[in-house]
């Protein structure tokens, strides 16, 4: 009797799960960048809300569920989280890992072997472009640092730095963008006076900044703010080792202002992936985000929305939540030909797809047309302190 009950319960669970579309969403909820992560997670949820509010998935309006897990911006934690999502929750695809190291590790050890598509919201390491061999399962909705590193080098030149010291955290994201930056900066005729890795999560970086501080006034700092970036910058300011700082997304957080103080950051500039606010897509997104209280222009928030919305479109286009068909569908809905779909236009897209038409999603963060590596082009902004807060300005 007990066995029968168990079997019935199991069948019920299985059928109720089958009636929904589930995607896995490993985000960096804890770890070094929880501040950056929170609005991105909110954007992911907002996209799911829009899908479900405008008719859900497929003809019978199945629910589109985002199953969240914590990848902690850490390769090991990401592998654990995604293993659980794929094997236990049985998700159809992964929208998520925020950090490059986490994205690469989970794709290589779990998602690719399981044949599950990964669409990262913000992983930007150039290594992700070339990591796949014969499969087409890793995509991202944020631009590669192969471009951002160059943009940063141009910015350094424009700021008048002829020499610069480079310090990077030893992980997939920071080491990769530092390498791109160094090559580009030297290519433009600049001198890199020191190029040192630093270990994340140390209590003190005074010897690091002392060693490099004698060589230049300018520091290019590639680090996550929460795992050493703030401490390193504080140590550099305390010892007056460096005057000017530049860096990328990993450092751009309000946490920096709160911890170090805006008055000490007047000579700092950080770049990040940004949206071109003049496009109709961004206007549509900004209206939706404002209504929901999500900060539309924060780093990677628009990318998070795009990734989730595109994943829902791809599954709708594939006609089922089987893992195999999703990758081809993702390419089909993201680029032309087809009716242009803007953020939030789920009902319109669903109607076109139901009638057998083609769609072309134009995202909030950019046009989101994937190239052969599953990468998208993007814009960048530079942020400086204006009136005690970060003010972003589009540069490319």
């Amino acid at each position, binding site marked *: 009797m007990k066995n029968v009950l168990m079997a019935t319960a199991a069948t019920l669970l299985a059928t109720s799960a089958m009636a929904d579309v589930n995607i896995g969403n490993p985000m960096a909820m804890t770890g070094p960048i929880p501040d950056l992560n929170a609005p991105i997670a909110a954007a992911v949820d907002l996209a799911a809300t829009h899908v479900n509010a405008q008719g859900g998935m497929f003809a019978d309006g199945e629910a589109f569920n985002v199953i969240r897990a914590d990848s902690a911006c850490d390769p090991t934690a990401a592998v654990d989280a995604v293993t659980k999502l794929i094997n236990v929750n049985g998700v159809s695809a992964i929208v998520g890992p925020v950090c490059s190291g986490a994205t690469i590790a989970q794709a290589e050890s779990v998602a690719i072997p399981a044949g599950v598509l990964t669409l990262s919201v913000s992983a930007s390491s150039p290594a992700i472009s070339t990591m796949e061999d014969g499969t087409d399962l890793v995509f991202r909705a944020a631009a590669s640092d192969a471009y951002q590193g160059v943009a940063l080098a141009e910015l350094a030149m424009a700021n008048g730095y002829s020499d610069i010291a480079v310090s990077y955290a030893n992980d997939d994201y920071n080491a990769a963008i530092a390498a791109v930056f160094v090559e580009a900066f030297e290519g433009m005729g600049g001198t890199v006076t020191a190029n040192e890795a630093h270990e994340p999560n140390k209590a003190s970086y005074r*010897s690091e900044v002392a*060693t490099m501080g004698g060589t230049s006034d300018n520091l290019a700092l590639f680090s996550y703010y929460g795992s050493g970036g703030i401490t390193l910058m504080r140590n550099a300011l*305390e010892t007056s080792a460096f005057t000017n700082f530049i860096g990328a997304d990993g450092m751009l957080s309000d946490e920096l202002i709160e911890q170090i103080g805006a008055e000490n950051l007047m000579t700092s500039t950080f770049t990040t992936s940004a949206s071109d606010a003049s496009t109709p897509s961004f206007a549509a997104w900004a209206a939706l985000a404002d209504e929901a209280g999500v900060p539309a222009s924060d780093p990677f928030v628009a990318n998070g929305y795009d990734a989730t919305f595109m994943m829902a479109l791809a599954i709708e286009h594939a006609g089922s939540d089987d893992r195999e068909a999703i990758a081809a569908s993702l390419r089909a809905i993201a680029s032309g030909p087809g009716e242009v779909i803007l953020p939030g236009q789920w009902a319109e897209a669903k109607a076109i797809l139901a009638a057998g038409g083609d769609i072309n999603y134009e995202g909030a963060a950019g046009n989101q047309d994937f190239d052969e590596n599953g990468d998208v082009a993007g814009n960048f902004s530079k942020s400086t302190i204006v009136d005690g807060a970060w003010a972003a300005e589009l540069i490319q």
Partner: protein
Amino acid sequence: MWDAFGFEFVNFYFIPGLVLGCIYALGAIGITLTFGILRFANFAHGEIMMSGAYLTWTMMAIAGAAGLALHPLVAMVPATFIVILLFLGTDRWFYKPFRKEDTIKVVMASFGMMLIIRSAVQVIWGPNQLTFVPGIARPNATLQQITGDLGAMIIMPNKHIFIFAGTVIIVIALSYLLNRTRIGKAMRAVSDSPDLAHVTGIDVDRVIRATWIVGGICAMAAGVFLAMDIQMLETTMGFRMLLPMFAAAILGGIGKPYGAVFGGLVIGLAEELSAYPWIGDAPLLSPGYKTGVAFAIMVIMLIVRPQGLFKGRSF
């Protein structure tokens, strides 16, 4: 770029090394005492440090809401009592049931405790970093002036002066406790031989409680000093310190509090000094690898002299 005033070594390598060494030393005291008296490696020690710093922050925030700006060293006092209760509570409910069992069980219990405390802190205070003291700590101007006149300018922010002074006071108090008081002598006796101590009428349970209290105070101080130094709080700050603190305890000799202090200072200095350009202009060792220095020292010590510098217990 600063002008090299010829005192770069002391200001940027030696003093930071000592600051780090003080924090390691205080943490290692607690580890070595629990290891010596209770005979297990307490993995939850780093989390106790971390929760102590969070509680201190809370005390400061409460006082701040009442319009009172408390110095961390003052706010630390009420927080210490909570941490000691936490220490005693975990011992009573999680470690005591395993005391007669194999050591590995209580080690695993402490490992579980580590994860429980960290998760609890994440639930209560959230996963975001918290600001302990905002802004940049400028060097103490008076000290800079006086030493500058003497031709050896020392650049040291107030927070480091507090950390040094605090560590010296705690180590002196500890040495008084261990050498001059009955309970201190009983602790040393239990550390040397628990059975013999029991036979001579020492109340072992009382000694164990005292160990947790002393270890708790030191862990608390280490956590708050660490937070004062890095000026922020985050939930893995204690765990990151755990392995160097173990290295310090092993280097000094398990069960030897002075050994732990010495080991902590050696590990802290070795980490910072390994990046000094001893030969030529380049760092001797890339700063990215300085954590490895602590463990290289520990491994060499275990091979050459497993009982540690101060003749502690060998494995």
